[in-house]
């Protein structure tokens, strides 16, 4: 648990969008998946996950529908919209630029 990093809001959005590329997921699965893929380093707390989901939904980047989960319970599934895809591309691009630049600065210093 000690290795985990508190994520800024924009990054949470990016991670959610990226996670949904593979298909519709409910909130719990999204947070599990992020944690798993980042080798337990990144974790989205519920406190920031659900507000982020609602915000993204309002912006029209993701849409929600109710479905049945693998353990046969009603669950809210989120999936990327077309604008969401575009937004993901744009934000990934911006993130790459930023991280490269930060990397360079760190290297240079």
């Amino acid at each position, binding site marked *: 648990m000690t290795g985990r990093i508190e994520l800024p809001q924009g990054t949470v959005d990016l991670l959610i969008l990226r996670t949904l590329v593979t298909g519709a997921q409910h909130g*719990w699965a999204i947070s599990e998946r992020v944690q798993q893929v980042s080798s337990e380093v990144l974790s989205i707390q*519920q406190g920031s996950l*659900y*507000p982020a989901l609602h915000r993204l*939904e*309002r912006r029209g980047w993701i849409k929600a529908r109710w479905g049945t989960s693998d353990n046969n319970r009603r669950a809210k599934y989120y999936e990327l919209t077309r604008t969401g895809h575009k937004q993901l591309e744009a934000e990934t691009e911006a993130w790459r630029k930023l991280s490269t630049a930060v990397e360079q600065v760190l290297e240079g210093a």
Partner: protein
Amino acid sequence: MLDDLRYRVRALFHRNELEIDLDEELHFHFDREVQKHIARGMSQEEARRMARMAFGGHEQVKEDCREARGTNFIELTMDDAKYAIRQLIGNPTFSIIMILTLALSIGANSAIFSVINGVLLKRLPYPEADRLVRVFLSSHEFPKFPLNPWDFLDFRARNHSFESIAAFTRGDVQLSGEGEPVKLNGFGITSGYFRVLGLQPELGREFDFQSEIPGNGLQVIISDRLWHSSFGADPGIIGRKITMNMQPFTIIGVMPAGTEHPGNEYHSVAYGESVDVWWPFSFGGNSNQRGSHFIEGIGRLKSGVTAQQARSEMNTIMAQLGREHPDGDAGWSVLVIPLYNEVVGASRQMLLVLLGAVGIVLLIACANAANLLMARASARQREIAVRLAMGAPRLRVVRQLLTESLLLSFLGGALGLLFAFAGVRALVALLPSDFPRANDIHVSWPVLLFTLAVSLATGILFGLVPALQASRTDPKDGLQKSTRGTTAGKHQNRLRSALVMAEVGLASVLLIGAGLMLRTFLNLIHLDPGFKQDHLLTATLSLPNAQYKKGEQIANFYERLMASLTALPGVESAGAGSDLPWTGYDENTGLTIEGRKPAPGEGFHTRYHMATPGYFKAMGIPLLHGRFFTDADKDGSPGVAIINHAMAQKYWPGQDVIGKRMSFHDDPQKDSDWLRIVGVVGDVKDQPNSPGAEPAYWWSENQAPQRDMSVALRTTSDPRQAIDELRQAVRQLDPGLAVADVKLMNELADSSISTPRFTFVLVGLFAGLAIVLAAMGAYGVISYTVGQRSSEFGLRVALGAQRGDLLRMVLAQSAKLAVPGTLIGVILALSLSRVVRGLVYNVSPTDPLVITAVVLLVLFIALLASYMPARRAASIDPMTTLRTE
């Protein structure tokens, strides 16, 4: 964008549903978390504890989700607004000018709209008022005339168009025994009058058909106001006897407050709560005599029946009556006019013209605001370029700029509303006293909504083009170059010049309108009414039937009153007449003229009055031929008449009329059937703006005594000083008489021109505001271009141009805006001339004098507006301007 809106609207309206969904979603998450921990070998309890820890505050999460749902738009708007407020505060002169000009024009619009709303838009205060109509007769000679009582009864019996129909006629009463005797506005009404209006007495009942039978008439319905003022709102008033016209009347009903008189034509009383007493009209006499017309019809149409349908049915009935009673009923047709048109019809055009005028002011203010915004946008080009370069989308910049203009327009609207409150009060005070529905004029909810809508529309109208323009700034250009001389600048200059031209044009239209109203007003003031209004005190008296039964008693009373009034110091002459000019009197009669036969199917008609010997002198009506009445023209001596010039012209053109004879008998036999004309007097105009006078003659009061008379006193000094003496003189003769309507004739005359004055003052005000705004616009554009061209001017001076040349250059530029602008204005005004035709008097709507004066004035003002910038251009120091480049 649309998704966003839909989401937010849903969030707003399906709040509960969303909350339940959210709860379920969060629980699902929680349970999965617990399951995960259990799968890893924890106990149920420990797993739940872990999950709860990880989850944080359940409510906090929910709160955050709610916030994420939709406050974003509002937040953004708040940001924009905050930024806009900073901008406005940072530029106080600009902001104050913008807000003030917008406030003045929005306020003026709201004030005029208050009047329109109260007078034209608000329903009349009767249930289903659109079914109420007025019924008149019409003939070749009398286009709009009251009904004959017997015709009315036949209409009532035979029609199928009306749910109910009633008639009413003016008959003021004198109430005594309750303090000082007072004269009250009263109407005789047929049974069902209030049912037609849809009104119920608050106490008692309405008159029934029994009360229409002669002898049953001593009943009365009183107004709520009279009930309070004279009877202390006594709840047991019904059945009480009161003394009216010296006779005992029984109160059978009290009408509630807000019972508005629907207005009437014959001896008219203005629309409104202007009537205090209603008594039963009774049908007596010979039902075959249908020549006298003095009651007015009002009806409630059956639902689904139009006024037009009712009219054609009534005309069918009238045609039957014409066959049944060819003497009195042939040659008439029936008018059925919606009550609304009767009440407000005359004011409608004037109000709509005013609305148009004030709308033009608002357009000019918009053009002006757009102009100022564009001038400022070019100063802010650098700021906008920076924002664009930082990646702000254009829409965002437009939105920001629009927020600024909306902020300005709403601030202007709010301040304008304050102006409107004050303005409406001033407007109502300025309104003619008989203006319909003046009491309904308030700044009310519809006015607030109107102001809100106008502010919004204004903000978008003047803000959108400059905002779009500014957002087209090329970030590179905006950052690299200074604000001068960009290509966008040139485009903008053209747009701004066009705006100024439009402003000048619209202002010219209003100025031409104001000029026409001014001439109309002056024409009316300088009109010779045919009598002298100054130093003239007037009052009305009515002698009660009960005490003054015989004609000689009446004649005797007025003779003695005139004698005592004439003897008063300070009174030059005194007289009494059946009426005063311009008070709505309209009594007509058919007549026989000795030695002349009317064309078949037509007759001789004329208006008639009564007068005492001193009347003409007191009124200042000049004698053209013959003599005035004398005390010798009394009962028993040969009948005499005085006619006016118009009557002499009509019936005896080119002849000496003195000694000619006329009669009211269809077939005069005896000498005493005839009246001999002894004098011709000058015409008194029917209305101040009438082209002439109706043919009319006067009886001698001594020979045709009349109970209701108007007294006229011509005084040597202020006529107000004679008021007490007049009351005193009347009291000495009969302490039970009320002296009513004590007025100065010039007040009466004044109120008759108050409508044109109202129009003139308002259109003048609006025109003044318009030209100031247009001048500001011209000044703004000229001084801006002078600023832009300062280096060019500097260069010219350096190359030897004279200061006068620069001055002329700038003034010429101003003329280039003003001349086409004025031209547009004149063309617009000419094409609108039809609109004002009904509002002008003795001046053509295309009056060349007015148009020329306005053109010169506008050009002068345009040059004046550009004189300051021109002076600045001429005083440019070439060294400093060239160095800055």
